């Protein structure tokens, strides 16, 4: 998809003006946030688990090449074919070639963020394949031509009524007078429509939450079971995964699973956690005939060599966005690409460059909630601050902002001058604002004053009063 991160302020304004989006987002605090809180409270050792998860991810990334080779060797020995893609276009071409070799017409997909990142659906559809998303949220937004607005709840921005209207528009083969007024009826309809797709599909594509070097397996985590159907029923199964998804052993994967679902949805385990290892075996009655794993770099090796390495620890739980006041205000689409929220504000500049994405790391209050919930302890605020430094170095801010910050530093590093100017400014501000105690409009601070008053100074600076009044008896 074409990123619109450079238009972040406009995107955000549109989001803020959308009452239905705001209503949908208002469910987050009482939903995913409260559920996580309860799940974490139920495990007294949760902080130790976070620390263990961080250590596992760090140790794996430190020696990633060895673990990738070990994974490849084992996966091949278990009958999978392993492919490597440097970038998005190579990954898409590899998947297309597999589909063509299998004479595929219908592809059914499990949820995969990297497939969004590389634009896989559009690539396959342009070559005449029918591609159907099977995660219910992904299915809904695919029909709308949208991208996910949340990495684990892709249609979080839509209401039941939105979905009902969409289903009437798309499922024209069903009776027009059917009832679609409950979540149950909507889910049942999607289940029936998608079941036919699962049964007819030639190829199933899934992502991977983890790739296990010890066993050559991919692990997917779902609640719907759609990923399992996608990797069981079609003749060909393709896993698309970035190279950072490897874990050395099953034991390490289990520790990561202990923090993943609790952080994401507040479940201790999702309904389905599945280890898939190679194609169907002799004697098996079901399962795909071919198993392919496409290992995708697409910028990860560069991140690994950069000061953004810590961000590669991410296990895509979405907790950072659930707890982010900015995400809660505007939702995911405003971020303009695949990954929203705090992790998106770090990943997007890493993958697309800072020039077009500098709003994202700047549009944060640095409240730090994301860091406190991240199951792998990514220092998201520090990483956003590093991107702000890059943006500054590349002179991406507006000239008045640059001039003002220079003026502030050059004044503040001259204390005598600073205190003199402060006295003058505060005297003027105090005289003008003292009666009301605040300003409603000024020739500057327009952003601030658009929504709130600016409290007026009391008339003299503390430094001035401290020196001019009796010790201990102010004024």
């Amino acid at each position, binding site marked *: 998809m074409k990123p619109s991160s450079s238009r972040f302020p406009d995107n955000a304004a549109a989001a803020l003006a959308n009452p239905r989006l705001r209503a949908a987002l208002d469910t987050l605090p009482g939903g995913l946030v409260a559920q996580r809180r309860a799940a974490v409270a139920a495990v007294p050792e949760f902080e130790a688990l976070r620390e263990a998860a961080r250590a596992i991810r760090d140790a794996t990334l430190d020696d990633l090449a060895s673990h*990738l080779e070990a994974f490849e060797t084992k996966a091949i020995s278990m009958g999978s074919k392993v492919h*490597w893609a440097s970038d998005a276009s190579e990954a898409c071409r590899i998947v297309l070639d597999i589909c063509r070799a299998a004479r595929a017409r219908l592809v059914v997909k499990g949820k995969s963020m990297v497939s969004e990142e590389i634009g896989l659906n559009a690539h396959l559809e342009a070559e005449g394949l029918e591609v159907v998303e099977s995660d219910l949220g992904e299915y809904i937004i695919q029909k709308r031509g949208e991208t996910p607005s949340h990495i684990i709840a892709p249609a979080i921005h*839509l209401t039941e009524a939105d*979905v009902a209207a969409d289903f009437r528009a798309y499922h024209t083969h069903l009776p027009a007078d059917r009832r679609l007024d409950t979540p149950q009826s909507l889910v049942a309809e999607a289940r029936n429509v998608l079941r036919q797709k699962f049964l007819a599909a030639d190829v199933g594509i899934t992502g991977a939450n983890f790739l296990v070097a010890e066993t050559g397996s991919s692990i997917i985590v779902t609640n719907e079971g759609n990923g399992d159907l996608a990797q069981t029923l079609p003749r060909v199964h393709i896993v698309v995964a970035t190279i950072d998804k490897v874990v050395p052993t099953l034991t390490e994967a289990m520790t990561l699973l202990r923090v993943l679902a609790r952080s994401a949805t507040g*479940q201790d385990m999702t*309904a*389905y956690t599945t280890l898939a290892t190679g194609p169907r075996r002799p004697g098996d009655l079901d399962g795909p005939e071919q198993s392919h794993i496409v290992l995708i770099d697409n910028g990860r090796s560069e991140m690994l060599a950069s000061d953004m390495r810590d961000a590669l620890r991410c296990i895509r739980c979405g907790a950072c966005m659930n707890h982010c006041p900015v995400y809660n205000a505007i939702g995911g689409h405003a971020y303009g690409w695949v990954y929203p929220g705090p992790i998106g504000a770090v990943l997007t500049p890493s993958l697309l460059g800072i020039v077009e994405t500098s709003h994202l790391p700047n549009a944060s209050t640095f409240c730090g909630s994301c860091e406190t919930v991240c199951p792998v302890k990514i220092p998201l605020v520090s990483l956003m601050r590093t991107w702000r430094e890059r943006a500054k170095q590349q002179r991406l801010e507006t000239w008045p902002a640059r001039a003002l910050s220079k003026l502030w530093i050059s004044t503040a590093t001259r204390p005598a001058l600073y205190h003199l100017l402060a006295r003058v400014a505060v005297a003027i501000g105090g005289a003008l604002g003292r009666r009301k105690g605040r300003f409603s409009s000024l020739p500057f601070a327009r952003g601030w004053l658009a929504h709130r008053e600016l409290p007026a100074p009391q008339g003299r600076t503390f430094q001035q009063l401290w020196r001019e009044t009796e010790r201990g008896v102010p004024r």
Partner: protein
Amino acid sequence: MSRDAILTRVRAAGAMTPKRATPPLAAPPSLTTSGDAAIARFRTMAAAKGITIIDAPARDAVPQAIASILSSTEIETRQIRLNDPAMTKFDWRASSLSIELGAAEPQDVMALSTARAAVAETGTLLLASGAENPATLALLPETHAIVIDAMNIVGTFEDALTILRTHYGESLPRAVNLISGASRTGDIGGRIVHGAHGPHRLIVIIVANEIRAPQPAP
């Protein structure tokens, strides 16, 4: 070739920093149980996930246990899909049930699998695919029943991995399914609905009288 180029870049990046070690890992004490406590915790955790739990005194009593649960619910079928010889050998007709062998078919209403292990930590069933327990049994029908011998109920995922490694060594079966409840979704309006793509209902039959194997060493 992309493979070598990627590995070269990754290796170069890795060489820039010292390698850190993964600390020893163990299940948190609050999630660790064994023996009867594990069975009790499994019941509690599975029930909390909406899993129906019934007991059978022995494997040959499983047909009767299923018949009784069918008569007490609205599941309208007397026909069960399964393929595990350990279960097909019993007298299903005596319980007015019929069985069909093989992997699941789209029209199947109910299927039965045998779990390799169950994990008390979260109330999770561990199923290993193969000719005896095709993976589709757990995915296609609206109701899925799982037989678990009480002796195979273990405390933690680490314990379950020990069982897995004991049975399969270094080569896992094609699919290992960790199942923790019926299929569900929260994708429409944030409300949880069951039966999104897989089963609406999950039933676990705990078989009591198998001889208890020694628990894995702590």
